[in-house]
């Protein structure tokens, strides 16, 4: 009975790790797409600040009618467009995170359903090729927590950005970059390495 439960759990774990693997690649890809957008957002903010500081009537450009208003409108429009695109990216990040969350909670539920049959000795038993069930569940939880944290931090940042708070917008690319945690990414890669034999053993 416990053998059966264990093997089904192992299969679920393999599926989850596979999904984490693909999600991680997707996640990094989306983030890589985001950073040029953030940089351009910062640029636009800088331009808007420059526009606020300059007195157009003192420059040779004063002959153009309504130049300042037109420029500001253009800039705001551009900022809007970029923000929209970032929000689109955010929704794809969210879907990645949801996939991982669903996978992990499914595995956990499967474990909890079979918890009667799986005593602690079984779940903590590890071999050279197969990490223990407890370890793998822990890694999955860690990965899921990482995605959730990252997503929340970025989402809060985007929510606090407003078109009228230019200094915040200008600093946004830096803040965005500072949210990355290379160590957590490494840890996920590490985890994937650790389970690679287990993945191939199917």
């Amino acid at each position, binding site marked *: 009975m416990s053998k059966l439960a264990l093997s089904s759990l192992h299969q679920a774990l393999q599926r989850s790790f596979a999904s984490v693997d693909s999600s991680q690649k997707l996640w990094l890809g989306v983030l890589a797409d985001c950073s040029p957008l953030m940089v351009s957002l910062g640029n636009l903010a800088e331009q808007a600040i420059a526009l606020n500081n300059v007195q157009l009537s003192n420059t040779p450009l004063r002959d153009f009618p309504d130049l300042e208003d037109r420029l500001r409108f253009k800039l705001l429009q551009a900022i809007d467009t970029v923000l929209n695109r970032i929000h689109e990216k955010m929704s794809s990040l969210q879907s990645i995170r949801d996939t991982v969350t669903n996978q992990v*909670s499914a595995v*956990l539920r499967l*474990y*909890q359903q079979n*918890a009667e049959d*799986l*005593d*602690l*000795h079984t*779940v*903590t038993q590890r071999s050279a090729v197969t990490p223990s*069930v*407890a*370890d793998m*569940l*822990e890694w999955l*939880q*860690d990965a*899921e*927590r990482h995605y*959730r*944290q990252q*997503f*929340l*931090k970025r*989402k*809060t940042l985007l*929510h*606090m950005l407003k078109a009228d708070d230019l200094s915040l917008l200008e600093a946004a690319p830096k803040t965005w970059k500072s949210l990355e945690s290379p160590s957590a990414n490494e*840890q996920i890669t590490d985890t994937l390495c650790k389970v690679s034999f287990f993945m191939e053993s199917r």
Partner: protein
Amino acid sequence: MESLKLLPVHPSDRGSQRCRLGPGVMSALGLGLGSPVLVSLPGGSCLCTAWPRSDLAEGFLQADLKCVSPGLLSQNPAHLTLDLGQLTAVPAHRLKSVRITVVVQNVDFKKRASPRLVHELVKEMLVGVQLHKGFVVNLEDFDTELVYVVVENIYPEGTTAGLVTSRTGVDIAGIQTVRHYRSQLQDQHREPLGGLEEVSAALREMLQLPLLYPNTLRSLGLSCPRGVLLVGPPGVGKTLLVRRVVLEVGASLVVVKGPEVVGSRPGESEETLRSVFARARSAAEDGPCVFFLDELDSLCPRRSSSSAPENRVVAQLLTLMDGMNRSDRFLIVAATNRPDSLDPALRRPGRFDREVIIGPPTSQQRKEILSVLCERMPVCPSVDLSELAQRTAGYVGADLSALCREAALHALRERSKESGEQTVGMKHFEEALKVVCPSCLRGSLGRTELSPVPWERIGGLEEIKLKLIQSIEWPMRYPEAFVRLGLSRPRGVLLYGPPGCAKTTLVKAAASSSHCAFLSVSGADLYSPYVGDSEKTLAQLFRQARACAPSILFLDEIDSLIGSRSGCQTPNSVQARLLSVLLNEMDGVGLKTVERRGTEQVLQADGGEESRTQEQLDCQEVCNKDVMVVAATNRPDCIDSALLRPGRLDHIIYVPPPDQQARLAILKACTTSMPVAADVRLDELAANTERYSGADLENLCKEAALLALLDENMEATSIKHTDFLRSFTKMSPSLTAQQIQTYLSSPR
């Protein structure tokens, strides 16, 4: 296996709510992977999910404190050993909905963030977390503006803990800032404060009224008082009182210490003051707030005509206080012990509307303070706090706490010598009383160290002793009897009589038996080459004596000190001016308000707090009212008659030269420390020493002893009767019959 060592949590586990245990412990408790477990630690408990350690070692525990009871928020338990009974498995539930309060980093976020966003964020943060009713979830690992979530209630009813899933409904009851939340938390562990109930009730009322009944006040058109000035001598607990009331009300506190504000550059102090006001204003948006200016006299001294920088600070404070809107819901409290040196413009209504005077505590209040202080000390049940309170006249709160500390130290020292049970007994307090003297008397010029003299040391004079006991000891011991008969304590006692008849010793004995503060002045203390200085010193002496009342002020040789107005050489001499000061101080129009004892604050809103009965108050009056002036002289005819009327020196006691029995008693008292031969007949000596004063008799004994030494060449072992007789023949009495007659015929 039984005991688990608590280790700091592993960095990678931070925020995971895991509790790392050995697999053995987990199976002993029946826990699976991720089962909720409640760990109780000293100071609170935390809810975790059980997880085996990666090295599977037993005997250790690492708990991530994500969901803890509020008591554990500020402390981080480490280096503890837990036993297995402190872990309890909690049944796993899924929650239908939770009701929470969100705690955010700063007010800005609270204002800017839309409720929808907060709801969304909080929900995402809570998914997958085990919650316990009444616990606090720490969200710091998400690194956002949200810091804590306080779990107010969870559903379904009846469960105390459970897991939040994506289908759990989240209901946000309110949003608070961290500072406000922390100040509320501190509220739960506070120290009690003795003896200041009335003042603290008044302060609390001022803070709470505008919060509880804003509409009523608006409809009445009332603006609430917003400034309170606390006045009192150092050490009565002004600062402590403010901190306590603030904690009780749950308000936030912005403290400004006078010297901290003052900067070196011109304009810097004003700027600091403005920024502190701005801070108080922003804190007031969050809830009630108290802006506390400690040591106001250093910040706002009386403005002088020169353009001193203090003038600008005072002006700035005045304008800031006037510029407070009605909507600024903060109260300004200032404390000072030198109200006279404040700028008068500060003390008008509209700025500091109310002045609360906290005097030195009365004996009732001292008893309350002592009982609060002794609550946490292992005090022997034989210690009588009310007696201790009576003996600590003039002690303020700080002195009393020093006294208790000293007593505890004595007990500790004694215990280190011999092992016994550790309780603080009355004898320790008595030791401490010798060391700790009231702070209002420190540096006072009349403070004298006096070696206690028991009444028995004075031979004879029974009637006079009784009179002194009546006027000094009885009001302290039996205040209720005095109240019953409508008596008040006598103001003063004059002892007169021939020199050498134990007047000074009598006063010493009275002072040591009544345990009240004893101040003694001589001419050397009072006289000064500057005009007006002596009078000031005398007035100051009376002020100090009143501050630690009941007290005895002893004026020895009052005839030379003060003199008389009639038959005086120069009408405006120092003596005459000193006399006028003395007359005024003894029976003047009244006291300065600042010298008020205790507190007589009448509450505005609730008059029902009048818990003490009138009788108790009266008793306190008798005990604490006045300074007792004891004067001694051997020239009663030289004293101004205005001093001798009832109400000033009411009791005028003649101390006569000793009669035969008294002389015998004196001789006995003098020879107790001498090896007297068996043949010495003191009664015979007493019969023959007519008109000898006490000092003469003492001298007689000394002389006899010296003669004995002279005869036997330093090897004398006892004094014989012949020695006494020889010394007797050498001496003559210092008093004459005529002298005694003048005292007896004296008209008083």
